[in-house]
């Protein structure tokens, strides 16, 4: 029994090692004095300093984050409303066909979506730039949010909602007091999925950037012709650390809230 346990631990360790080794490798080399990833040449912070002086790259990072946050926020709102609407449809045929249309957008290749956006925007004479990138990111994020929120709505079922309306709750109250709190985890995961999709999207973004506006993935890809400088490693290191802090922070926040909720529940029990 204990033997099998150890083996599974080893397997887990191996999987994580394989997943994280490239990232660690990248970060380690961001401290190398050399100019390439072939040999480590001794410790330095120079690439981080170069990064700080590269205003263009910093602007692009800020723009990328802005696009990611804003587009996933708007997509989450639209997607959640969409999921509510789909959940309301009574005829299974309508619901299934809307869902299939939604899923087709998720599986169709990014290149095709990007090219069609480019043709669409230029046909409407919308100049490429911030707006077009934002709009296309919102568009490809919405189906993901719908897909994340819908299962939670199914789980909720109809009994709670009918109970609430039987007890005299208005539609607004049902939405804000029953449905939204229940599906919050789905909304949050939809938001974070949209965020990651937007952050690392290259194919769609490439087609719709223009007029001085660019995002990180497009910029890094274009720099690859000359070989990627270690400045990019330094940037990746910082972003990785940032993501790590966010995830760990989110975990502790959750723990804290859960503890508080537990304590409150205990106290109420004591009072009773």
């Amino acid at each position, binding site marked *: 029994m204990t033997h099998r346990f150890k083996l599974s631990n080893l397997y887990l360790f191996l999987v994580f090692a394989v997943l994280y080794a490239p990232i660690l490798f990248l970060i380690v080399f961001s401290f190398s004095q050399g100019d*390439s990833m072939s040999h480590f040449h001794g410790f330095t912070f120079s690439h981080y300093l170069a990064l700080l002086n590269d*205003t263009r790259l910093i602007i692009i990072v800020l723009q990328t984050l802005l696009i990611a946050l804003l587009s996933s926020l708007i997509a989450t709102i639209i997607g959640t409303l969409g999921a509510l609407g789909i959940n309301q449809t009574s005829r299974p045929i309508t619901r299934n066909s809307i869902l299939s249309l939604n899923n087709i957008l998720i599986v169709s290749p990014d290149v095709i979506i990007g090219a069609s956006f480019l043709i669409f925007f230029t046909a409407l004479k919308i100049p490429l730039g911030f707006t077009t990138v934002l709009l296309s990111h919102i568009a490809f994020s919405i189906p993901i949010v719908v897909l994340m929120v819908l299962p939670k709505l199914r789980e909720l079922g109809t009994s709670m909602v009918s109970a609430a309306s039987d007890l005299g709750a208005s539609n607004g109250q049902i939405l804000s007091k029953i449905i939204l709190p229940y599906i919050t985890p789905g909304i949050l995961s939809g938001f974070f999925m949209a965020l990651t999709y937007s952050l690392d999207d290259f194919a769609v973004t490439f087609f719709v950037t223009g007029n*001085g506006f660019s995002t990180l993935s*497009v910029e890094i890809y274009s720099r*690859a012709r000359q070989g990627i400088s270690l400045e990019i490693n330094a940037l990746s290191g910082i972003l990785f650390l940032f993501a790590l802090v966010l995830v760990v922070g989110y975990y502790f926040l959750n723990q804290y809230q859960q503890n508080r909720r537990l304590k409150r529940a205990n106290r109420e029990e004591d009072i009773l």
Partner: protein
Amino acid sequence: MKRLLSLLLGIAAICVLLAFSANKLQSTSGDSSAKVLNLYNWGDYIDPALITKFQKETGYHVNVETFDSNEAMFTKIKQGGTSYDLTVPSDYMIEKMRAAHLLKPLDKSRLTGFANLDARFTNQSFDPHNRYSVPYFWGTLGIIYNDQSIKPEEVQHWNDLWQPKFKNKIMLIDSTRDVLGFSLVSMNQSMNTTNPAILKAAQAKLNRLSPNVKAVVADEIKMYMTENEAPLAVDWSGEASEMIANNPHLHYVVPTEGSNLWFDNLVIPKTAKHYKAIYAFLNFMLKPENAAQNAEYIGYATPNKKAKALLPKSIRNDKQFYPSDRTIANLQVYSDLSPHTIGLYNDLYLEFKMNHH
């Protein structure tokens, strides 16, 4: 509900903050008034210090945007919706863009310093009399060898690659025109041939090279060569100069019988708007001291004769990257072939790659 609302507000606040700081940074890095120039360039293909210098000298703010392939750039410009003022296509792409009416002719009367350019690199077949383009950088295709296992005299010509002793020792750059091209040159044929029979013969000859070919790879070739994974490679001069900088045992040879001569030229696409800024920038880049600084930063060969004279002797006299007149006379520029011929090239090349594995 409250939690969702506060999250929403929080994210909105972060967005405002991000937008504000991005704007602020943009305005400090140059004034964002109407005096702008939109440069659409290859990634990391200009010395950033020169952009700063240009902005200080002229007061124009330069927006740099980057692309990673000629084809991608072509699509973006053709589709419109952008306002790029200058871009840097390679030779065959200039021909293609010209044919598609995507280029605006240069007004030579507004150019100063065009005479600084080496006459050998102007008036090329892809743009007769430079009606549309100003040469930016040029380079060649050649053989890279490692002096630890290969003697220089062993690889001076394309045909040397076929020697049985190089079994499994050569890496090729994954590029249709270049790989078929050097096979064509080795048979004394034009790199722009449209004759199917000659192309088939070139492919048959390449198939005989197969035992010597270790791999057909793209950008990674630089890393493999620096790491001594193979002693021989066929690649472009720009890539070669980077490999040599990282591994002093590597050397670059342009076979005297001929090879490809490539150009990246500055052109004005039809999307251009800021003509004053465009000519200010072209004239700025034609100045010998600026062109020399750029060439030293990028490591490619400059077509600017006066700039070359300003380069350090070690670079200027390097026969690897500034080959002799006799070799240059034998170099060939790719022309834009018909889609049908390009299809034939691609098919034959693909067959060669399939054969290899």
